[in-house]
């Protein structure tokens, strides 16, 4: 297997020209799937026999929560890549991805709370999953705050990579400890870990919205990376040429 593509990832110029045609189709495809999934799920899928219509929020909550975790995994991996191979694209990716992940975690929290009100009777329950998403949100905010307060670019890159890697190592432990906390607490918590078997009309729209949201986020992150590349490389000749030829 050739590793050439991997080394090419170190060059922002290569990445920029390679990725130029990607974001728009990916983004549009994502939007398309998302619209289908959401419309299907919210309007046409049959209501749950236990939870009625309130279950429909899973078409937002589940994809968003999945994204929030996947984003952190991606951050940690790219942080590792940066620390080991000094790949220039990795910090750009982290910078582009962190706010998206934070927003996903926030939406997951809010939609979870909205779901919790009719289902559990309260907006908030110290349920293991909710708590770990809350911690995930804090981790994202930490990375963003750190990047914003460090003026020096080299230091900001290293710092974000270090904290992402440490976060990735810690995340399973945090998750495990939170689950442990919940199972040992004798509080009045409901756990909805066992999902009922879903009919196809229910999970197909879910699949659509999950795929749609992944593509949607991929498109947005690619765009953010491209603009970050332009900002960081604004002194280099290829950026000047690019702007002269194609405009902004």
């Amino acid at each position, binding site marked *: 297997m050739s590793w050439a593509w991997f080394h090419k990832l170190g060059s922002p110029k290569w990445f920029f020209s390679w990725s130029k045609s990607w974001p728009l189709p990916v983004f549009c495809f994502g939007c398309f799937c998302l619209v289908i999934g959401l419309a299907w799920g919210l309007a046409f899928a049959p209501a749950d026999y236990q939870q009625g219509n309130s279950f429909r929020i899973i078409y937002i909550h589940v994809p968003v929560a999945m994204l929030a975790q996947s984003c952190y995994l991606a951050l940690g991996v790219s942080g590792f890549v940066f620390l080991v191979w000094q790949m220039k694209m990795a910090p750009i990716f982290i910078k582009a991805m962190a706010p998206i992940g934070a927003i996903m975690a926030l939406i997951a929290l809010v939609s979870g709370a909205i779901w919790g009100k009719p289902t559990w009777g309260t907006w908030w329950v110290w349920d293991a999953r909710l708590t770990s998403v809350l911690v995930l949100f804090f981790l994202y*905010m930490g990375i963003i705050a750190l990047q914003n307060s*460090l003026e020096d670019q080299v230091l900001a890159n*290293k710092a974000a990579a270090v904290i992402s890697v440490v976060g990735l190592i810690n995340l399973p432990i945090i998750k495990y400890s*939170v689950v442990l906390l919940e199972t040992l607490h004798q509080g009045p918590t409901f756990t909805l870990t066992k999902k009922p078997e879903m009919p196809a009309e229910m999970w197909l729209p879910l699949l659509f919205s999950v795929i749609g949201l992944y593509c949607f986020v991929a498109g947005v992150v690619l765009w953010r990376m491209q603009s970050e590349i332009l900002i960081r490389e604004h002194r280099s000749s290829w950026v000047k040429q690019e702007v002269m030829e194609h405009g902004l």
Partner: protein
Amino acid sequence: MTYSSFLVSEFLVLWRRKQDVFNALLFFIIVVALFPIGINSSPDFLAPAAAGIVWCAAVLAILMAVESMFKEDYRDGSLEQLVVSGLSLPLLILLKVVAQWLAVVLPLLVMMPLLSEMLYLPRSGFRVLIMTLLIGTPSLFFIGVIGAALTVSIKQGAMLVMLLILPFYLPVIIFSTLAIKAAQAGLPYSGLLAMLLAMSLMSLVISPFMTAIAVKASVN
């Protein structure tokens, strides 16, 4: 510079700055005192909550102490000298953390009998509280020192370190308080202590290298 001369100088500086350690301990006592005063001072509330109160206060006090660990060295250039000393930077950091741990945690342990009386912590829980503090706090230091090194170049970095590092402290707090509660209830707790020990050992292995990367990036 050698490892032993570095350690000696670290202890000397800690001794000259004993007021700082003293402040951290006072801060710890005040935070502990806030709970009986602010929530409920009856033994019914305090006895089961004592472990959590002590641990939350300890986490805050330790993070305050760790946060400023590199500040002075960064200002006077001795951090830079560590980088160019030709010695292993991760090992120097490890020694520094050990010195700091001894200076902060040992006095903390000495105060524990007094505090556990004030919080009506039962005898059965006290022994486990000491054990969790002994084997759990190293991981607090090792994780916190990464944040301290990352933010050393920022003037007002204390709040940022809190935001950055406190989420990582959650598992340590959870394992410790669960162990103490289990002991109070007469349940087995050795598994939880083993988890704490594992966390401390893991952070001992990983943190010096991460901190060294952060220090090198910060001093340039």
